[in-house]
């Protein structure tokens, strides 16, 4: 699960660092707001705990043993935000000091295990545990399922990241430059081990810890307000998540579907370039797509003149410095979404400012 250096291309690593940073920032801001001056000791000791439990050997059925990441247990006790930070810090120390997991791939490992792992564990735990009492046996099952689901989703993400490498990154002879297995091999290979054995280690640790704490220290299971999310009953309300949830879900879905564009063949109707009119193959495509009506034999003069007026920063959806068009396509989609979000945030800010000025000046 800890991806070492050299398995992912630097561009994939950069993208995953970029994806992880907003989560780290939000988590840090939220935990700091709740914990105030307690932030430093809490994060330090909780990260040390996450590091140490990664070294525990958990006996599994069939006489094997496994190591758990502990993200399920950490999320249940600390809350998703503090867990995200603690597991990330533990992973950083593992990578830098003990060479377990790479430095370039630290963003990817944190994204898979700490960030997505904590969020998946949190939502699974809340969904299954519901409003049951802290000492309810349903909470044990909820924690166990949270750990199991979190680690399997993290494994699936890892497999996906490894599996897209040979698709995008090959040398001149066609040999894969990084992880060599395509998705159809990487996903079953990774998931087989995690759905059966490695997932069980996480399941036992998360379920076992909650069962133990219910017997000995149930207050700790209600500690989340002190250690992680302030009021667990409605973290959504505090973040404004509930009100904007449909918007974010749709945006996430659209961003996830972006790679479909890479698979589409041909050119979109009406999005031809001036030089396409003189290319025989493109002319055939245009004729076929236009109900067998042949395009004009020369490029329209107006089109030729206007097309030279503006050149896009990311021509063909790929910035000039990115050599692989498919990767550039995904990058452009992310950049585009960022620009649109930025624009709307700016507009919201302007409108809010005007509103406050208006209300301030009104009698």
């Amino acid at each position, binding site marked *: 699960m800890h991806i070492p250096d050299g*398995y992912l291309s630097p561009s994939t690593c950069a993208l995953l660092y970029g994806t992880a940073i907003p989560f780290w920032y939000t988590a840090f801001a939220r935990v700091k707001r709740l914990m105030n001056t307690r932030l430093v000791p809490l994060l330090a000791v909780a990260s*040390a705990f996450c590091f140490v439990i990664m070294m525990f050997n958990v006996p599994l059925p069939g006489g094997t043993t496994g190591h758990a990441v502990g993200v399920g247990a950490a999320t249940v006790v600390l809350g998703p935000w503090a867990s995200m930070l603690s597991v990330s810090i533990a992973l950083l120390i593992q990578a830098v000091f003990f060479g377990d997991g790479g430095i370039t791939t630290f963003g990817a490992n944190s994204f898979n295990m700490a960030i997505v792992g904590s969020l998946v564990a949190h939502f699974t735990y809340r969904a299954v545990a519901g409003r049951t009492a802290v000492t309810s046996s349903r909470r044990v099952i909820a924690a166990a399922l949270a750990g199991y689901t979190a680690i399997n989703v993290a494994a699936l993400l890892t497999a996906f990241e490894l599996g897209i490498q040979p698709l995008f990154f090959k040398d001149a002879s066609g*040999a894969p430059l990084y992880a060599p297995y395509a998705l159809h091999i990487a996903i079953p290979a990774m998931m087989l081990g995690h759905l059966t054995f490695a997932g069980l280690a996480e399941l036992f640790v998360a379920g076992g810890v909650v069962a133990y704490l219910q017997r000995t220290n149930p207050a700790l299971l209600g500690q989340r307000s002190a250690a992680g999310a302030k009021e667990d009953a409605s973290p959504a309300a505090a973040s404004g998540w509930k009100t904007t949830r449909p918007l974010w879900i749709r945006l996430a879905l659209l961003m996830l579907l972006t790679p479909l564009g890479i698979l589409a063949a041909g050119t979109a109707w009406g999005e031809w370039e001036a030089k396409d009119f003189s290319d025989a193959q493109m002319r055939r495509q245009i004729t076929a797509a236009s109900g067998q009506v042949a395009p004009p034999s020369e490029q329209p003069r107006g089109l030729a003149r206007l097309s030279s007026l503006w050149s896009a920063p990311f021509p063909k959806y790929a910035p000039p410095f990115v050599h692989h068009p498919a990767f550039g396509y995904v990058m452009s989609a992310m950049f585009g979404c960022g620009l649109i979000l930025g624009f709307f945030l700016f507009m919201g800010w302007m409108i809010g400012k005007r509103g406050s000025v208006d209300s301030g000046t009104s009698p």
Partner: protein
Amino acid sequence: MTRAGKNSRGVVERSLASFVDALEHAFYAEELAKKNGLLQKLDPRVKIVAILPLIVIAALARRLWVIAVLFALAVAIALLSSVPLGTLARRVWLGVLTFTGFISFPALFLTPGPAISSLPLLGWTVTAQGLRAAIYLIMRAETAATFSVLLVLCTPWSNVLKALRVLRLPVVLVVVLGMTYRYIFLLLRNAHDMFTSRKSRIVGRLDGPEQRRAATASVGVLMSKTIQLSGDVYLAMRSRGFQGEVYVLDEFRTNWFDWAMLALFITVAFLAFWFGR
């Protein structure tokens, strides 16, 4: 993540061995960091700025010979920094070779391309692209791991952390990392004591579910201790006047040797980037 172990040591012994390994690794690094070698002489900030690009370029290079040259450079730096090659081989190269070799072995046969050889009995064909893919993966992983281990083995951990500020890491994060490292040893010792005391009370072998209960109960105890500890540490910090702001002493000073080595490393990194495109 799993390991077969029906007939090998019990789970308590194996966890104990992991804790001792971690402690041993840390003490060994402290010892090496005190030696008088090339990397030990350099300012920690210079080391980070010089070595991180080499790790990234080892991952970027699209030519095998460039990665091989970077690996040779890592070995040369290790020799100049009094890091015994036997230690590197045992602690880094063998582990990476076993893990990555195991991962990349099927790629020899599964990667499409012209066949260059076949296994005698099974008749599986090794493709040229498969061989190149396996070599890329192993060499990249070995080179990057060697550089990152060298960076850490030749610098006291507290200095690595302080030097991380050169990458614009917030001070509070540097302090948290430093404290985490310190409390890892405390919790490792706690876990070690817990497992040792349990081991001393066990006669015979525990069955699977009992072992599992013991392991998860230990995690639970450690979790309770962790929360208790964070409260104690906070009170200790408050009683010494901590009000939320953290400061780090920057006592590093660079000299001409640091700058000369930095220029050399950056030049090598640039050349490797240029030829590895």
